């Protein structure tokens, strides 16, 4: 019998099936808890906003904060078997390739969240709005649309190509960093990941600060629009965009090698 040792879509599906069977009780519960707390926070926010001035912009800002916080937390729980030796053994010996397990983790953690969470949010926001409107017909700002909400925040509604790349990569980074941390660290990955990035950022600023001081670069501040050597804002955004792509790819590589070289 010939076994595909690189990538089998069938086995990827088996991984999903396995996950669903194992969590068939947990998923509905988690979904209910998440939806419940979102609806409660909508009601609460609208109540303290005096029922009146709640708007699409509020919906979107709430969305962004929930998206960021829950997203980071959810990504940080990637590679759940790595939290214990016994689970790691079962996971590593499960007859699926590293690439299938890796793709499964990305799909079930990052992609699923980025795709499903906004849909769920949209449904819940409109559902809650409609119910609210039914009981308080005088409230008219109950319909939620992402487009209107974001347009309220981003005034001109236009993004430069590299600014868009930078934004998208920044969003992805939020997920990929804890994802890689969850692959790399066995115990309390989120804390360790945050700590690691804090240390990296601090060292960077310290380095830039010292560089600034020692070279006596008057007026060339590392923070702000005039990053060292690049006075042109467009170039800076482009370079930062490219930098983020590289950072994200490196983080994915770290996650991949963590899985591939994992021992238990």
């Amino acid at each position: 019998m010939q076994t595909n040792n690189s990538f089998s879509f069938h086995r990827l599906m088996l991984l999903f099936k396995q996950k669903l069977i194992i969590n068939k009780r947990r998923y509905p519960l988690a979904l209910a808890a998440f939806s419940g707390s979102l609806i409660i926070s909508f009601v609460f926010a609208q109540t303290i906003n005096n029922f009146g001035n709640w708007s699409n912009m509020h919906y979107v800002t709430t969305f962004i904060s929930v998206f960021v916080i829950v997203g980071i937390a959810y990504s940080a729980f990637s590679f759940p078997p790595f939290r214990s030796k016994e689970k790691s053994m079962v996971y590593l010996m499960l007859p699926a390739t590293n690439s299938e397990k890796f793709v499964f983790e990305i799909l079930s953690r990052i992609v699923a969240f980025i795709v499903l969470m906004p849909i769920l949010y949209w449904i819940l926001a409109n559902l809650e709005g409609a119910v609210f409107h039914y009981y308080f017909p005088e409230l008219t700002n109950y319909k939620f649309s992402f487009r209107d909400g974001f347009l309220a925040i981003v005034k001109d509604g236009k993004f430069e190509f590299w600014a868009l790349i930078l934004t998208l990569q920044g969003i992805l980074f939020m997920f990929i960093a804890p994802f890689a941390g969850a692959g790399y660290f066995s115990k309390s990955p989120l804390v360790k990941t945050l700590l690691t990035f804090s240390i990296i950022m601090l060292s960077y600023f310290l380095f830039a600060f010292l560089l600034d001081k020692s070279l006596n670069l008057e007026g060339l501040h590392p923070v702000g629009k005039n990053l060292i050597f690049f006075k042109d804002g467009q170039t800076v955004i482009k370079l930062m965009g490219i930098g983020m792509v590289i950072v994200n790819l490196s983080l994915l590589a770290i996650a991949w090698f963590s899985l591939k070289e994992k021992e238990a």
Partner: protein
Amino acid sequence: MIQIKDLHFAYPRQEVLFSNLSVRLEAGSITGLLGKNGAGKTSLLKLLTGLLHPISGELSVMDHQPRKREVSLLNDVFMVPEEFFFPSISIRDYVKAYTPFYPRFDHELLDRILIEFELGNERKLQRLSHGQKKKFLIAFAMATRCRLLVLDEPTNGLDIPSKALFRKILAGSLDEDQLVVISTHQVKDVENLIDKIIILDNGEVIFHQTIQEISQKVAFISGTSEEREAAIYSEAVPGGYRLMVPNGYEETEVDIELLFNAITNGHKIG
């Protein structure tokens, strides 16, 4: 089936465990892997299943390097570890979630063993006792029909009748193309089950013979202090001595404990 040559392995920041380990194992055997605490039995089993990576040397299992964890090897190797984890689902759901990964999985055999072990399909795995969980895992391992089965202390935690059942199940449901490696301290539990003994000591395989070879070379008898003179190795027991003597006449049952002590104390049986 298994070829190990000059295997070198150490855990990070720890002293070397295996320096020049070499051994060859073929299918069609139930091999007992013996060794003192810390001799590296579990580590060797984990190296075979790709859970640990060798530092250097040759390690091949069914023509695969286990560290690559290729599916064609993973779906042909099953390990029952000493400590394990189960999700909180029923046996039926566990079977649904895990069996599709094993192309030769034998559901009929699983059901038969579960009945013998008195484990119903609806039982929740998390609510089973440690011994029951272990029995389920053994049943699952047998039913995968993997060519390499690795059992780490399989009888630990099994009750008295289950130990006998374990032997019967193993003896009766293996094919000739399968190899079972059992690591254990409970030699009585596997006494007539294993047909080959490997002893691991000081990072090396210091003994590797079949039960038949052993029993043709040496006999294990009880005797007096005079007979002790002719023995290769002896131990005092109530009422006399247990002796390992060169076999001159009829084959005796192999006293694995005595053999183990003899070998690890530096005696040779040729």
